[in-house]
């Protein structure tokens, strides 16, 4: 792209600097996240279903 003068060296460097900042923010966002819970995991194996009798199977519903 430099060869066909689509972009300049300056733009290359500017995009690199901007991307570096984006990644820094991404790492901060990620490291600040909560750890997942076992309860949420176990509730996420099946999608909620309108024709599901899981509650019956668990004995929760008579």
């Amino acid at each position, binding site marked *: 792209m430099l060869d066909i003068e689509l972009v300049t060296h300056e733009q290359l460097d500017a995009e690199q600097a901007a991307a570096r900042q984006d990644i820094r923010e991404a790492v901060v966002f990620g490291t600040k996240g909560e750890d997942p819970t076992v309860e949420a995991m176990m509730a996420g*194996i099946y999608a909620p279903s309108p024709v*599901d*009798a899981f509650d019956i199977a668990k004995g929760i519903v008579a």
Partner: protein
Amino acid sequence: MTATRTMTYAEAIREAMFQAMTADPRVFLMGEDVGIYGGAFGVTNDLYEKLGTDRIRDTTISELGIMGAGVGAALTGMRPIVEIQFSDFLCQAMDQVVNQAAKLHFMVGGQASVPLVIRAPGGSGTGAAAQHSQSLEAWFAHVPGLKVVMPSDATDAASLLLAALEDPNPVLILEHKLLYKQSFEVPEVFPKALLGQGRIVREGTDLTIVATSIEVQRASEAAELLAADGISAEVIDPRTIKPLDLPLILASVSKTGRVLLVQEAVKFNGFMSEVAAGIAESPAFGDLQAPIRRLCGLDTPIPYSPQLERASVPQVADIVREATALVKEW
């Protein structure tokens, strides 16, 4: 008293598919020879004439490809039904069933779900031998993320299929190939069914027989014979083996104090082992007057010889014999 009509298991499945496809443009079927050939067991029959080749799609012999196409279509807004010609051929599609369909909703943190219905005939009795006659339900029930359905009559075959199509998860329906041509009394309108809700097929007081698929029918016939001999058997059909309606089974076991577990699949590591363990772990165990007994297929590949094939899976006489022993000896 609702009006009834007579139809075969295969006809009920066909009507349920037609009903679903007429009501919901997202539903379509794909599989080997489901079009002009009408399906290996005639289940689709003339559906392609009514619904067109877009909705009733003939595929190449590519179980893995078809299953994956079902997964991809389900992920992106469709409600595919994939027909696998014999449940044994699920082995060819295992990656897409077990590693993809079952796990995608979980793996992507709930961003998407896979409302895929897989229909496949299982069971023995046709002389097709070891690669076309297996009962592999336990494999699939062992995989978190899948639901496994085993309809034992025409009404359930239709109602559970319609329930599966409303479910946002992958549901495997193991039909029984010996049932396809059998006729049943069926209500005018297929009743609503829930996945995970079993059914008391026949009430009784002396023992509970839990059976799946064609063994429900054999257990019911056995119960008739047992009644003539003064033994009152309660027959329970779990209908879906995952999720499992264990409370229904436990209540019955507590009432009768004896339980016979009957399946066509081999005994070792089979579904009924799970039921036995569920009973043993529950307070109902304390109500048992006799040890839990399992009557299952022999631990063998299904053989070709008709005599050997019959001997390999529980028949009516076997159920009568085991039930009688359970009641008389304890």
